């Protein structure tokens, strides 16, 4: 079987949900499908889309989520449906759903992941860390990524996991994951995939911390809202530090001037989702009082991306698919960038399929403002991928 036929990619730009699914199906349908994965705009009529999906792929495992933008053969898009199908000859997949993320317990995550791992092993006897990976799609507004990510990866052990937080086109109303024929809110879907192809996880970001530091002096950790920075209203103080007026704060500014925390010498971006009318800031990730934030500035995103894909290609050759979880703030930056076309070309030439997220998961960690994902090569699996 040709490696090129192991994965089929599709991208429908139709704004009608049923038409989009039909077009998508035409692109990716195959007789022996292990898994169908899709990413769709939340502007679609999600009930219609779900129903059409059930009709399009009966008896087939389909997982997906809503987004803040879709990536596929059509490039960087909004209000579209992108995805891929995986052949049963090249892949085995199992998936499970965690509902009610607000009540999520660490122990629940452990049991869930182990159960899923056993299912994968019973389906594919040789499944293990060498030939398997996990893909997490999680509600992007549940603010539960940290404990979920941590507990799932911990239970999966050496089977590496990547993922993205579902989006809703920057409306910040509600995000959904798709599992077993319908969309779920406040939920996460974990899919474990075992493959005979080589693969490589990657994570790339393009920020360096500056010397300017701020302290979170008041915050609501359950809603990820920072009310005060340096003892002053958060939005105002952040704006002052980056040198603008608070009223000019918008996602573009957040993208250009993210804040980072330094852990063990490494910077982790803590992205700001929005400035609220009460002068507070909502984040895409966990924050708390007493946290020291540094203002960061962007470096060359294009060069950074090229480097990341060069490293992928050096290890597994030309990918037949790159599953990418690309932060919404990156998309905002890219859309303003003179390098936009070249960046899109890189994604196209690496056969990227994915979405713009409200956060990314890389192994056990929930991160922001990165492109995180998994590249699947077309050669035979290597004995020791790492």
């Amino acid at each position, binding site marked *: 079987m040709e490696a090129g036929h192991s994965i089929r990619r599709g991208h429908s730009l139709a704004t009608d949900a049923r038409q989009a699914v039909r077009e998508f199906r035409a692109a990716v349908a195959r007789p022996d499908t292990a898994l169908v994965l899709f990413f769709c705009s939340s502007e679609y009529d999600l009930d219609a889309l779900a129903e059409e999906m059930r009709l399009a792929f009966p008896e087939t495992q389909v997982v997906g989520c809503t987004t803040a933008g879709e990536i596929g053969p059509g490039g960087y898009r909004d209000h579209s449906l992108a995805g891929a199908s995986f052949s049963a000859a090249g892949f085995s997949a199992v998936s499970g759903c965690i509902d009610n993320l607000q009540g999520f317990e660490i122990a629940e995550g452990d049991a869930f992941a182990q159960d899923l791992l056993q299912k994968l092993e019973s389906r594919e006897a040789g499944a293990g860390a060498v030939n398997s990976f996990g893909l997490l799609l999680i509600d992007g507004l549940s603010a539960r990524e940290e404990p979920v990510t941590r507990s799932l990866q911990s239970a999966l052990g050496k089977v590496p996991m990547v993922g993205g937080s579902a989006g809703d086109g920057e409306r910040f109303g509600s995000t959904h994951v798709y599992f077993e024929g319908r969309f779920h809110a406040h939920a996460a879907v974990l899919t474990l995939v075992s493959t005979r192809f080589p693969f490589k996880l990657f994570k790339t970001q393009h920020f360096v911390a500056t010397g300017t530091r701020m*302290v*979170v002096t008041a915050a609501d*950790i359950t809603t990820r809202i920072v009310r005060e920075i340096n*003892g002053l209203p958060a939005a105002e103080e952040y704006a002052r530090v980056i040198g603008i007026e608070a009223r000019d704060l918008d996602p573009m500014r957040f993208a250009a001037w993210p804040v980072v925390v330094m852990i063990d010498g490494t910077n982790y971006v803590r992205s700001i989702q929005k400035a609220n009318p009460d002068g507070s800031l909502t984040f895409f990730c966990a924050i708390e009082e*007493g*946290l020291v934030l540094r203002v960061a500035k962007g470096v060359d995103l294009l060069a950074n991306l090229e480097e990341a894909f060069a490293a992928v290609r050096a290890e597994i050759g030309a990918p037949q698919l790159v599953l990418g979880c690309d932060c919404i703030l990156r998309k905002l930056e890219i859309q303003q960038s003179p390098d936009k076309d070249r960046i899109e070309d890189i994604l196209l030439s690496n056969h990227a399929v994915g979405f713009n997220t409200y956060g990314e998961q890389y192994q*056990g*960690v929930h991160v922001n403002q990165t492109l995180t994902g998994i590249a699947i090569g077309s050669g035979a699996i290597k004995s020791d991928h790492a």
Partner: protein
Amino acid sequence: MPETLSPAAAMDEELLRAEVARLNKVVRALMDRAERSTNVQGSDFSLFQSAVMLEEQVRARTAEVEAALRRNEKVTRDLRESEAKFRGLVNQSLVGIVIVEDGKFTYTNAKFNEIFGYAADEVKSLGPLDVVAESDRPLVEETLRKRLSGEAEHVRYSFRGLRKNGAQVDIECHGSAMQTGRKRTLISLIMDVTERTRAEREVLALQEKLRDESTHDSLTGLYNRRFLEQSLARELARAERERTPVSAIMGDLDHFKSVNDRYGHLAGDEVLRFFGALIKGRARASDIYCRYGGEEFLLVLPGMDEQAAVERAEQLRGALAAAPIAYGSTQIAVTASFGVAVFPRDGVSGDALIEAADNALYAAKEAGRNRVLVFAKPAAPSLEAPSSNRT
């Protein structure tokens, strides 16, 4: 800590109080967090942070383990390579190498197996004495005992080796012993010196032959003049010391030139060989018989007086004259003349004695050949032709 003061912080007291309150908030937030971070059950952020730290640790540990594995692999590979090199070296060695433990061969190289004609797996069941010829087993057994007991650390000896096919080979063995744990291990270098021994024997034979050629006449096998000169003075000195006589007989074939002319040089050579053999055949061990010139032969007879010398000369003359020499289908009849002189009476030196014998020979020729004459001093003419010695 905030790095900049609020611009509002003027000297106004109210503003100053506000600034103090702000800074206090910052300090309290930092203090609270510092205390919180010691709690086991953390916030979402601390979950994130500990996951990062944990992953960092796992990554570092994994990298360490992988590096250790790589080092281990490299060491194993190096060891394997080095052992392969060692094996290659040992197996390509021109000498046999053998290790004996508990009376058995525990290691033999390819050359060792080749020397004794065994396959590698056969040799494992054997011990040192199995490759030694029966005659040399006591010798080998004794050296093994000495090496095992520590009496001898290094030995070098030769023995007759016994190949699998029963053939014997000459073996040179350089052995040493090594203490490995509680065991004493014998390590020996074995060389097949059969060829070398044979070559040595050949060299010895060649040297013998060369030595022989330097003192013997190649045609007749008799001594040559060189040997005569070396030994005559010695014999005369001894005779003088012991006051014993030494007689000399100079013999010469009669009309030898005509034999050559008539029958050819090969026939002449045959006649010379025959005459030489005749002289040698009747000589005592102490006699020096040599081919003195072309057809001249000299016999030096230590301890022999004139009468016995004349008798010997007569025997030779008679024997030669009695039997013609067979040369192919031809019978060649030859005679010889002989002159006898006695030391010290007829000459006190070798040269003088030979000259006297030569003079007597000349006289015999003059007298008609095929006869024996004793040297007669010119001062005593009455002795010049002693009829009693003439036949």
